[in-house]
């Protein structure tokens, strides 16, 4: 048993065990350093795991040596590797540049606890991605959610508290729905292991409880993933959370919920409940389209930049669902790929806001006027990430749009309508980001704020790494495309085709 063999477990264990340690470290900078180191280590583990599954293989790890389905099994495939990269990567980048921002917003004695909560949240999210056990997913989901509530409640605005309360209620309802669904499946199959469930559902004496379970699980996870119209918790939670936290959760938490949704709806139910595939497409596709249009349209009229980006996320989540509900290799690839690319773009956008917050009194569109001249490098990085969100060619966002539109074209008449929706929403994205960029570059700054201290170099470098990742993965998207393609093959139960040359 080499160390490499234990990596799937270490992915969760490292941050989870570092968290209590960080909580008791008194010097706040030491706490930050320990948290960042643990996060970086988790990222390194993710990268290693990714390299191990890049050839299409699946890693299985038996917790405590108990074989599945009796013991808990950790399963790493392309989809989980992609999600792990997002979770650990966004956490590491946000921590690397977030120290000043946290120090400004929070009393010193609360900071170690904040970092401990951060690591717990990350461990929970990573746990969801590695485990192959349905109940384990519930536990990790609640661990990460509870920690995330704590993180969001750290926002300086008192509205952070009300928005986190709303999130707590809705998040718990979502998780409980999921638990009910898992309970029904357990009743019918006697197992909690995903792979085993898939095999045993076929033998279930009656279908009705399984359909009920599918309903509960889909709705519960859709709530967690902020799928329209279950998105109402998201804009305020993003808007009033500490800026670093927004960057982290915008890139990771909804994607993880979506990951479980895909797992369940495709792997567990799809092959077994005939008609569920159709149900998924018929039910989720209209929601996805509505979400894409609704999110973009609301963002067009939103005046707070962070809420605007939150509504944009609702639209982008719609893209992911839209791709997945096409139910073919190309569509699911596009949906999964967009999880990755959207995280890159949205993460970089929110990271830019972390730096801008140093100079701005708030993120009202009036308040950001002239920021392009006061912070040219930061705004340029924001511009780059915005281009990716719109889908300008040469950026990561374009790659997933390309796959999405290609997949939609293959669907005939419905596909043409979907192309129109995607294109219309891209144009709306252009318009709402333009509403941000034009005052940022040409507006006259309000005279109230006088803080013109130069931006420190280190966070700016980190921000630019995040922004340039959008260009890198726009020109060389082999890694995410390969992962997404294999993930789609696995989800649809067909061997991956058209592997990247």
């Amino acid at each position, binding site marked *: 048993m080499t160390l490499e063999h234990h990596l799937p477990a270490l992915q969760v264990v490292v941050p989870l065990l570092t968290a209590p340690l960080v909580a008791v470290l008194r010097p706040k900078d030491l706490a930050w350093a320990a948290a960042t180191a643990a996060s970086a280590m988790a990222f390194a583990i993710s990268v290693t795991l990714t390299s191990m599954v890049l050839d299409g293989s699946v890693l299985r790890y038996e917790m405590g040596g108990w074989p599945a389905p009796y013991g808990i099994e950790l399963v790493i495939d392309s989809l989980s590797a992609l999600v792990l990269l997002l979770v650990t990567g966004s956490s590491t980048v946000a921590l690397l540049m977030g120290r000043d921002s946290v120090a400004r917003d929070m009393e010193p004695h609360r900071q170690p606890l904040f970092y401990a909560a951060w690591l717990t949240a990350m461990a929970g999210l990573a746990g969801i991605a590695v485990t192959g056990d349905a*109940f384990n997913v*519930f*536990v990790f989901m*609640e661990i990460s959610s*509870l920690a995330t*509530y*704590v993180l969001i*409640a750290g926002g300086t605005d*008192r*509205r952070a*508290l*009300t928005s*986190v*309360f709303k999130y*707590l*209620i809705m998040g*718990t*309802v979502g998780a*409980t729905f999921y*638990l*009910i669904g898992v*309970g029904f499946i*357990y*009743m019918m199959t006697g197992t909690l292991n995903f792979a085993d469930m898939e095999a045993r559902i076929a033998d279930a004496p009656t279908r009705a409880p399984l359909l009920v379970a599918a309903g509960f699980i889909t709705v519960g996870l859709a709530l967690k993933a902020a799928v329209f119209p279950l998105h109402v918790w998201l804009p305020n939670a993003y808007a009033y959370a500490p800026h670093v936290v927004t960057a982290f959760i915008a890139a990771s938490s909804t994607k993880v919920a979506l990951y479980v949704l895909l797992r369940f709806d495709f792997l567990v139910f799809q092959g077994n409940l005939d008609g569920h595939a159709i149900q998924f497409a018929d039910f989720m596709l209209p929601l996805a389209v509505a979400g894409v249009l609704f999110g973009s349209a609301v963002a067009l009229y939103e005046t707070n930049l962070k809420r605007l980006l939150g509504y944009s996320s609702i639209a982008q989540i719609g893209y992911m669902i839209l791709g997945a509900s096409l139910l073919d290799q190309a569509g699911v690839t596009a949906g999964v790929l967009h999880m990755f690319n959207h995280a890159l773009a949205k993460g970089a956008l929110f990271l830019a806001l972390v730096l801008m917050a140093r100079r701005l009194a708030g993120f009202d569109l009036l308040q950001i006027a002239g920021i392009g001249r006061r912070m040219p490098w930061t705004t340029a990085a924001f511009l780059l990430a915005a281009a990716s969100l719109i889908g300008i060619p040469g950026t990561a966002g374009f790659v997933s749009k390309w796959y999405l539109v290609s997949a939609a074209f293959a669907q005939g008449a419905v596909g043409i309508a979907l192309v129109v929706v995607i294109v219309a929403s891209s144009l709306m994205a252009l318009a709402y980001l333009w509403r941000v960029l034009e005052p940022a570059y040409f507006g006259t700054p309000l005279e109230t704020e006088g803080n013109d201290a130069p931006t420190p170099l280190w966070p700016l470098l980190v921000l630019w790494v995040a922004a340039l990742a959008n260009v890198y993965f726009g020109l060389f998207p082999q890694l995410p495309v390969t992962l997404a393609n294999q993930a789609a093959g696995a989800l649809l139960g067909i061997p991956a085709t058209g592997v990247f040359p």
Partner: protein
Amino acid sequence: MLELLGHLHYWVFAILLMTGFYALIAKHNLIKKLLGLAIFQSAVFLLYITMAEIEGGTAPIIQNGVADQIYSNPLPQVLILTAIVVGISTTALGLAIVVRIREAYDSIEDNEIRRMDRRS
């Protein structure tokens, strides 16, 4: 009738679930919302525990000399032990947030809080 009574535990589950759900949607008081949430979760605990019951089953403890004993399924009970812990943590965190909300707004009625937010 008998069939309905035979599913008694499902009825209890459904009624508890909806009671909790109603409270967390309809009540303005944040504490009452949290109570609703707790009832909502308890319903699910009940669902798991009752499903583990096997007619004539006993506690799953292996004893020497007793053979052919029917045991209740221990796994759901173990699961729900974990879920209870999670539920308590959620309620505790929720209450803590309510305390902070009261400090910040001097109110725990969500319609009043919403009014204050709109004014600011």
